[in-house]
């Protein structure tokens, strides 16, 4: 029996676990990865013992706690019974529950198959993923996300190619490019769609107090790239990716600000347009979301203790808005404090005192994140060509979506388009195509993305073998 099940062992989750377990809460952590750290502190396998993870070492040490249950390679794929509904007489009745169990169930799938747990509360800290921006050729082998390239370099100590072009809108590109240079890769160029807004950059300076780590990281990356002679260009965008005779990426066609095209040979194109909050499990659980383009798209709403709209489901980190690891840590701590009070594990006045410094820290982080978002706004999505594949799972093109909207003029929502065209119905459950499809529907129907809505998130949010469901819980 667990007081809290934490889904996601990244910065927010680890910070929360530390606070929860230190105050005697019985905690279960599930994470799809084999080790703690999330995307940001992704650890190399144990064989790379010499490798260092400079940031977040203290945080990673949390994962050594023996008083916490760690279920690695385990996906949380559904939250059931979270809503105040009618009593469920068909199997989830109070009599079935162990003493102290909550009415809510978290369904997980790991090396031992599928099962459910009944924690008293759930904390969702699922983080974020790279924003996919479709263009002709984006599905070619060799076109990767900057985050994906970083995983290769940081976690496997491998270079996924020889000659790299990095393109997008996010300053992370500079950091990844510098890591690639340091690992001995040839980086042809780094392209940012827009020059950072100077005024916004200036406003970052006062907001940077306490956030100097991030600025230092960016400055260091620029210095590395300058020394290595890697051009960093602003205003240049990717037009398309071309395949070579082997069907893999061979060249990237770029458009300069004046509109002229040129072709750059490369075997890896790493894209970093920004990040999308991983809200799927939260949305499946029924948590309310709102659309906040500066924070990465749909974000889970929460109160001042990080509680979502669903009772006993709290949220922390990037799923409440993309803002970086430091803010995630602060939110994780705050969520943990809120849960300790809600579950009656620590008296409320004491929680109030403990929360004060965390709130101060969080305010500072939020100021910086807001300033950073203003300096590097996610690109306004360029309308995709009809031939461009939006949903790579079901191979649905932008042209198919446009044709569906034209033939069925009542269609107004992402869910309506999904049902008719199958976009978002594939293995990734729409994580990949949702931003582009919603933007396209909004553009074609003259509505806002907020009105178009996200896809309904359905369990299992990651595919699980049907056989592991049959027979019920072990």
């Amino acid at each position, binding site marked *: 029996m667990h007081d809290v099940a934490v889904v996601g062992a990244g910065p927010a989750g680890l910070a929360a676990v530390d606070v929860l377990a230190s105050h005697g809460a019985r905690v279960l952590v599930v994470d799809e990865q084999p080790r703690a750290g999330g995307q940001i502190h992704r650890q190399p396998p144990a064989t790379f013992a010499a490798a260092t993870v400079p940031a977040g070492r203290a945080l990673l040490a949390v994962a050594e706690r023996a008083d916490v249950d760690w279920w690695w390679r385990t996906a949380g794929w559904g939250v059931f*019974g979270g809503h105040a509904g009618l009593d469920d007489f068909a199997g989830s009745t109070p009599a079935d529950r162990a003493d102290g169990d909550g009415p809510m169930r978290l369904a997980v799938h790991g090396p031992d198959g599928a099962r459910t747990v009944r924690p008293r509360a759930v904390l969702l800290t699922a983080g974020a993923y790279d924003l996919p921006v479709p263009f002709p050729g984006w599905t070619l082998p060799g076109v990767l996300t900057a985050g994906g390239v970083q995983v290769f370099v940081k976690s496997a100590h491998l270079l996924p190619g020889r000659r790299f072009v990095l393109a997008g809108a996010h300053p992370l590109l500079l950091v990844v490019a510098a890591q690639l240079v340091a690992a001995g890769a040839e980086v042809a160029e780094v392209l940012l769609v827009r020059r950072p807004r100077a005024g916004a950059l200036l406003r970052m300076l006062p907001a940077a107090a306490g956030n100097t780590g991030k600025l230092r990281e960016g400055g260091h990356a620029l210095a590395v790239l300058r020394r290595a002679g890697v051009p960093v260009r602003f205003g240049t965008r990717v037009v398309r990716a071309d395949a070579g005779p082997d069907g893999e990426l061979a060249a990237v066609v770029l458009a300069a600000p004046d509109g002229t095209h040129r072709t750059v040979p490369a075997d890896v194109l790493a894209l970093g347009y920004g990040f999308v909050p991983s809200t799927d499990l939260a949305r499946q659980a029924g948590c309310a979301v709102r659309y906040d383009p500066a924070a990465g798209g749909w974000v889970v709403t929460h109160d001042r203790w990080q509680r979502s709209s669903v009772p006993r489901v709290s949220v922390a980190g990037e799923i409440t808005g993309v803002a970086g690891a430091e803010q995630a840590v602060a939110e994780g701590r705050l969520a943990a404090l809120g849960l300790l009070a809600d579950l009656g594990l620590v008296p409320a006045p004491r929680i109030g005192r403990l929360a004060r410094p965390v709130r101060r820290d969080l305010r500072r982080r939020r100021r910086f994140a807001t300033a950073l978002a203003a300096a590097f706004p996610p690109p306004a999505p360029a309308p995709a060509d009809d031939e461009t594949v939006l949903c790579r799972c079901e191979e649905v093109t932008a042209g198919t979506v446009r044709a569906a909207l034209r033939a069925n003029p009542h269609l107004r929502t992402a869910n309506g388009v999904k*049902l008719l065209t199958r976009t978002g119905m594939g293995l990734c459950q729409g994580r990949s195509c949702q931003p582009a499809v919603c933007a396209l529907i909004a553009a074609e129907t003259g509505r806002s993305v907020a009105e178009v809505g996200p896809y309904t998130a359905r369990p299992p949010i990651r595919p699980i073998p049907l056989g592991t469901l049959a027979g019920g819980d072990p």
Partner: protein
Amino acid sequence: MYDVAVIGGGLLGCAVAYHLARAGTRVVLLEKDELNRHASGQNAGSLHFQLEYRMVADGDAAAERAARALPLHLDAQRAWAGLAAELDAPVEVVQHGGLMLAETADELDRLRRKASLERRHGLDVTVLTGAELTSLAPYLAAGVRGAAYAPGEGKANPRLVTLAYARAASRLGADLRTGTRVTALTREAGGWRLTTTPTAAGRGARTDGVRAAAVVLAAGVWTAELAAMADVRLPVVPVALSMTATAPTTPFLPHLVQHVGRRLSMKQTSDGNVLIGGGSPAKFRAVDGRIDLETAPELRYESLVGNADAARVVPAVLRLPVLRCWSGATTLTPDQLPVLGPLPRRPGLYAATGGSAFTLGPTYARLLAETLLTGEPSLPIDAYSPARFGFLNAV
């Protein structure tokens, strides 16, 4: 002033609008959300013309009563076969036959009684066992003792059918208004006034309401509350269900598979996904202690397990990944027959809803349109008349 206002943008509403528009009627369709966003688009697309599990689970008398809809089953079996050509749109109708399975001696006995009842009503259905069954359906588990085979059964694509009807209706001049909620039905000289209010899904939604000589209530689970606006009580019961879809795989399951002893329907779509449904329940959300029909029912973990368990009769599915599970709501009546026809003492007011309204939808819609246009449907529909619930209505 319209000749007919149809309330409900599901399969039935769009199909009724299509048939009326084709006959030259001035018809308006009012839907509070988008088209096809509720039961018509959420069901798993079975074309099941045998009596379902729920109709034969409660003894022979109930089965006999439910069998009174079999003439509609026979009509629908023909209607689906010609639908793609009629609407000039792909609707992915496949009628390669359906099997209703029995795993125990008792179930096999029930299957035989069911088949004989259906044959009396003219349905082509045969009980197969042993090698005959194995050669027809080698994918079945060894524990399956027999199956009733109806060659006209199959599947259609619920993602496509309603919108195909809607586009055809629109081409013929029907006025389709989405995002338009009807909030009052008022009898006035020469017909009805429908008060409307725009919703978030609105497209060209207007607030000025609609006037029509006749009104068709084809609103699924909302039919009862619409009828109540005209002070008529209809006993239609919303039932929340859950469905499961697997990842696509190579074609191996040409038939619709059902089970006579439990809730199960299974089929493989033309894209290769296996859809599992057939009645595993979901749970209506409650707001202030009352069922909320406006939010999708909540999926129950037990139903996901139930769908997976039911699928054990086709072992190949056990290794397929589950892609998603979803919920929907269907509309049933106490006697499991549809509600189809004019409402008594409400001139010009008609209803069309009730069980199996996807499978039987094209037939319900055509018969209701014929009733409106000529007063003489091509099949008798008296047995399904809302008048059988007249005892609920004093005025």
